[in-house]
């Protein structure tokens, strides 16, 4: 799973959004992809029929295509676009370790309806079918609601879940969670990357820059509550307890 981390998570580069053309690979990357791809294919084929050789050749040829066409399906899946450096994504990263078995942690998250139990920025998640779901979220003030449909794009049981919003969403977003066994029986490591693209183009970007730090903090706290509810069965609170005059 360590490779998945690098593949899916290099999130510092996941900062742009494709608007016009299908090209989502920048010029430098295209040249490097083409050259690197050609070299990989050549050495891969030279290695003849070994598994490594075939793998190298396959990867190499896809890199060549990426370089030649400027289109990368991985970039697309991740909303990564190194060709149009315009709209920044809000990127939220959080890693934590949960003292529970990996399959329990995975199953709790996979049941998407569970998410609003610990994520205060979500008011509702409804599973439409096995892959698609409807989400309702609110901004940190609780006044503005956003809705979107999302689709699970990658699912590797007990290991990885990735999703992105479907066209027509009020907030475009994508995310991935991967689950790894922590060493020495210390539970399950959960690594979450969530990306939001602000609505309404450039104006949205202005509004988003005001909201984003609060939103990012809220989502991070929400993910922490996932751990708390998994481990302790409830979310500790002091809301409603007595206090003196303040």
């Amino acid at each position, binding site marked *: 799973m360590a490779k998945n981390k690098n593949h899916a998570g290099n999130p510092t580069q996941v900062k742009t959004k494709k608007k016009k053309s299908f090209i989502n690979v920048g010029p430098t990357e295209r040249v490097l992809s083409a050259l690197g791809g050609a070299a990989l294919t050549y050495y891969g084929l030279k290695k003849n029929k070994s598994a490594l050789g075939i793998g190298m050749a396959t990867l190499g040829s896809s890199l060549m295509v990426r370089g030649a066409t400027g289109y990368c399906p991985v970039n697309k899946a991740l909303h990564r676009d190194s060709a149009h450096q315009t709209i920044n994504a809000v990127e939220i990263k959080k890693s934590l370790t949960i*003292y529970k078995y990996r399959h329990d942690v995975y199953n709790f998250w996979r049941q998407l309806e569970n998410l609003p139990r610990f994520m205060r920025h979500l008011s509702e998640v409804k599973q439409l079918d096995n892959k698609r779901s409807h989400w309702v979220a609110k901004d940190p003030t609780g006044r503005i609601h956003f809705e979107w449909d999302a689709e699970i794009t990658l699912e590797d049981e007990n290991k990885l879940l990735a999703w992105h919003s479907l066209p027509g969403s009020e907030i475009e977003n994508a995310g991935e969670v991967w689950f790894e066994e922590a060493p020495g029986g210390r*539970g399950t490591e959960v690594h979450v990357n969530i990306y939001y693209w602000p609505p309404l183009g450039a104006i949205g970007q202005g509004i988003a820059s005001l909201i984003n730090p609060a939103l990012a903090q809220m989502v991070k706290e929400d993910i922490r509550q996932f751990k*708390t509810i998994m481990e*302790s069965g*409830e979310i500790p609170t002091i809301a409603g*307890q*007595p*206090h*003196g*005059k303040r």
Partner: protein
Amino acid sequence: MKALCWTGINKLNVEKVPDPSILNPKDAIVRVGLSSVCGSDLHLLDGYVPAMREGDIIGHEFMGEVIETGPEVKKLKKGDRVVVSSIIGCGGCYHCNTGAWSLCDNSNTHPALLEKTYGYAGAGIFGYSQAFGGYAGSHAEYIRVPYADSGMFKIPEGISDESALFCSDAFPTGYMAADMADIAPGDIVAIWGCGGVGQMAIRSAWLKGAERVIAIDRLPERLEMARTHGKAEVLNYEEVDILERLREMTGGRGPDRCIDAVGMEADSTGIEDVYDRTKQYLYMQSDRPAVLRQAIVACRKGGTVSIVGVYGGLMDKFPMGAAMNKALTFKMGQMHGQSYIPRLLDYVQSGEVDPSYLLTHKWSLAQGPEGYKMFKHKDDQCIRVAFKPAI
């Protein structure tokens, strides 16, 4: 109900507040029988623990009777007489499961506050500022106890309220100090501070097999208590040169295990005291570390320094060179009450230790502000004042 609230630095007020209610399924409500002051409360009062909010109910060392339980409370029931750990632990995280309850990952409701300075936040603590969860404290007629099955312990028949009370905090803290010190046969243990925790550390050092116990303070009544109840040899740091005396008393080796039961508002003598107080007053250091410095220098080579006195932030002139070159071991932490309380209740029940002698004053809740004033200034030979809401 009546409750003792923090209203500003060195300001306490008894106020009428709403009764607590069950907020989570694992909560219980306890009618407070006795609730003790603790030296660490003085750091809150003096303004050295950040994130106190006006109106916060303080107090964390208490016992009482269960009057209501949430649907997920299974082990204890209405009517049980209980002593409650001052530290709140969820019981489900890695740290709780390995016995390190004060490191609980989940019980602090405001972990982000501490993470900024500490990297990671510790457990919630009753009545101990927003940074430690903002939980309402025990100087009140009733208190809500979260994760009640983990933190409440039924008091066996035959143990009085007064004897059980200090199993909530002072005894487990002192016991943990001795436990962390890794006392081996032949070891001489020196303990700085003869307040409630120091007195319990003395008793616990014996339980852990110390050869000799030396207690250090400046107040004659505390040293007397350490001598009579604790059977310790005592030193008054205002009368003797502590480093020189410790060297003499240990055949020139130095004490093997040194326990700091004082913390960040240590008093000392001479120019060092003036220096630390000035810097702390100007907020150039948050912690006044005279005791810790002395313990490090006094400790024998290869010895252990065990710290249960509370520190909050940064300190100045920490003798790291002495610590490193003498190969000292440092162990420290808020106490893991849930790990220790059952065996401490056994010691109390068997009569080996009866901590009730710490209780020098039993007052009503209405006398809360006055009680803290007496405790802070060590007036009337006060070791501990506990408030009894029923008075």
